[in-house]
């Protein structure tokens, strides 16, 4: 076990993949000489050169579009988008090209590539730098969507994503880059599996990315107030979704809460809840609860900003209120 920061885990994953395979390249704004806006590619340009750490113009459509072409041409590119909101400029490439070339060509074209970006509310970055798009990207067949909420997962899943022959959207969170965590370098981590962060028997709380930490912060108070134990699941793979782990947990607890940072309308949690209602109706002992961001552009003012997303205190309050009506 080695303790490292989330961004160091990502850096190490990329470094090891670059060392092992000369076809691995990374491209994006400031990934080379600058070392990446979040220091994820720090130090790599001096090891692997500008040919493999490619500083691109501010042109997201081309960053992903070029990566698709590089993958067609036999490379294994990692495209970094500075933040989720900018990825919208590349959505044509992600959705129309990256996700479809393999299927449209009957498997003749393979795209071993990764598109990485951070998302979510950081601190007062306002409406155009704070959003989350996992709900849209998870709705696209032909790409895998991983969301790294944990340092160990960040290292292992990014490595697997780079080495995998399928295109992967790898979502990070702005506030996690300096999170410390233990990485077990020799562990076998299945990137498609959810992680049971904490075991419990009365209530299943499903989350991902930074909200997992907020849920973990809320759990002691929830358990204190209700006398019940919470099982906390970090989904990690958003598409496909690890229904096996979810099923086992919900069948055990009978209660499902989903905590997500993105706007509630059309949010990813709706998929989890609808799946549970369809597949596990008679295992549910309570109406499922979604705790999500408000339907509002993310405001700049810190107080308003925090009011627009779930926080540990809000998670506690909403679960207690809901629990009182749902036999918890």
């Amino acid at each position, binding site marked *: 076990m080695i303790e490292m920061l989330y961004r160091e885990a990502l850096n190490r994953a990329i470094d090891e993949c670059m060392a092992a395979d000369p076809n691995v390249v990374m491209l994006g704004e400031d990934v080379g000489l600058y070392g990446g806006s979040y220091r994820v590619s720090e130090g790599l340009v001096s090891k692997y050169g500008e040919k493999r750490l490619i500083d691109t113009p501010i042109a997201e459509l081309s960053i992903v*579009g070029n990566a698709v*072409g590089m993958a067609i*041409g036999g490379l294994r590119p990692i495209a970094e988008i500075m933040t989720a909101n900018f990825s919208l400029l590349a959505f044509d490439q992600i959705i129309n*090209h990256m996700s479809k*070339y393999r299927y*449209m*060509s*009957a498997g003749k074209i393979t795209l071993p590539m990764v598109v990485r970006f951070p998302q979510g509310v950081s601190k007062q970055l306002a409406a155009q730098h704070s959003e989350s798009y996992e709900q849209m990207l998870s709705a696209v067949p032909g790409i895998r969507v991983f969301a790294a909420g944990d340092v160990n997962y960040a290292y292992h899943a990014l490595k697997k994503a780079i080495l995998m*022959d*399928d295109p992967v959207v790898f979502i990070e969170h702005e506030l996690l880059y300096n999170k410390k965590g233990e990485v077990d370098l020799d562990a076998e981590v299945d990137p498609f599996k959810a992680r049971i962060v904490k075991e419990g028997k009365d209530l299943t709380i499903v989350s991902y990315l930074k909200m997992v930490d907020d849920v973990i912060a809320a759990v002691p108070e929830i358990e204190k107030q209700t006398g019940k134990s919470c099982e906390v699941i970090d989904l990690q793979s958003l598409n496909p979704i690890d229904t096996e782990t979810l099923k086992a947990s919900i069948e055990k607890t009978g209660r499902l809460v989903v905590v997500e940072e993105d706007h509630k309308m059309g949010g990813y949690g709706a998929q989890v809840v609808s799946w549970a209602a369809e597949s596990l109706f008679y295992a549910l002992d309570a109406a499922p609860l979604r705790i999500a961001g408000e339907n509002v552009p993310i405001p700049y003012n810190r107080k308003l900003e925090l009011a627009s997303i779930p926080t540990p205190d809000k998670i506690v309050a909403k679960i207690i209120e809901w629990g009182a009506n749902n036999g918890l």
Partner: protein
Amino acid sequence: MDKLTAEEIYYTMVLGRKFEYAAKEHYMTGEISGFLHLDIGQEALSVAAMKAFDHGDVFTTYREHIMAIARGIEPKAVMAELFGKKTGVSEGRGGSMHLFDPTHFFYGGDAIVGGHLPNAVGCAYARKFQESEHGVMAVFGDGATNGGAFFESLNISSAWKLPILFLCENNRYAIGTEITRVAPFLEQAKKAEPYMPTMEVDGNDAVAVYEAVKEAQAYIQKSHGPIFIEAFTYRWEGHSMSDPGTYRSPEEMEIWKRRDPIARMQALLKERYGMSEAQIEALDQKAQAAVDEAVEYASKSPEPVVAELFEHVFVEEVAHD
């Protein structure tokens, strides 16, 4: 151009036109469906460019049946794809607009206007990275030159001196909109001039197209960076089967039909290469036979089975997917 090449180009052009008419016919009968974009009138450009760019990767658009055939993909595999059959080049998953075959370095079939240009640029980066002597040819219409992807691609390929040939087939119309109504000039190569050398060529003259592409191929192979060719041509049919093309005057159509690229190539074979009427007639018949065979093959081929719906989505299977 040697006689053999000229004969080969002529034959493929004729094959292409007959193929397109056959596709049109079977669209009418309902055996082909969806969008069908015909290349009739533009055969010189489609065939000569592919024959000239004899090594390297080709990225092109949804009007690509003839290019695919000229690149070496079997006509019957293309027709079967139009019929949506399992034996089609994309096993019935792509259709008319999505023909891909990496064994022929052909990444045709992109149906997002301009969307394949960044892919072509990325592939050119890979070729330069691999120190390959081959480059990339990106084919696109005049309509694509007004979008952001086009300008991003000019900028990046020029900044990084990538081995890529931008081949613009200017047929004057972006679906129903005449190009000068939405761009400040007719010649789209002007947009590329600040970034790279440009050439203009008569797209209905197979020999001129062939020579221009050969020259451009030699240029990008010497690591000079990108180059741009604009070929002027005209499609005889509408944008797709659903477009009657009423936005064009009969007079304009007549002028361009008089510039028929196949008739011009036929004349050249007789005059420059001394081929007889009978020899040409034999090529035409051979082409017709190939098209008939392709239709026969396509109509008799099996459809893909529903159980295979999820095949080819991913390389790696996941149990709980």
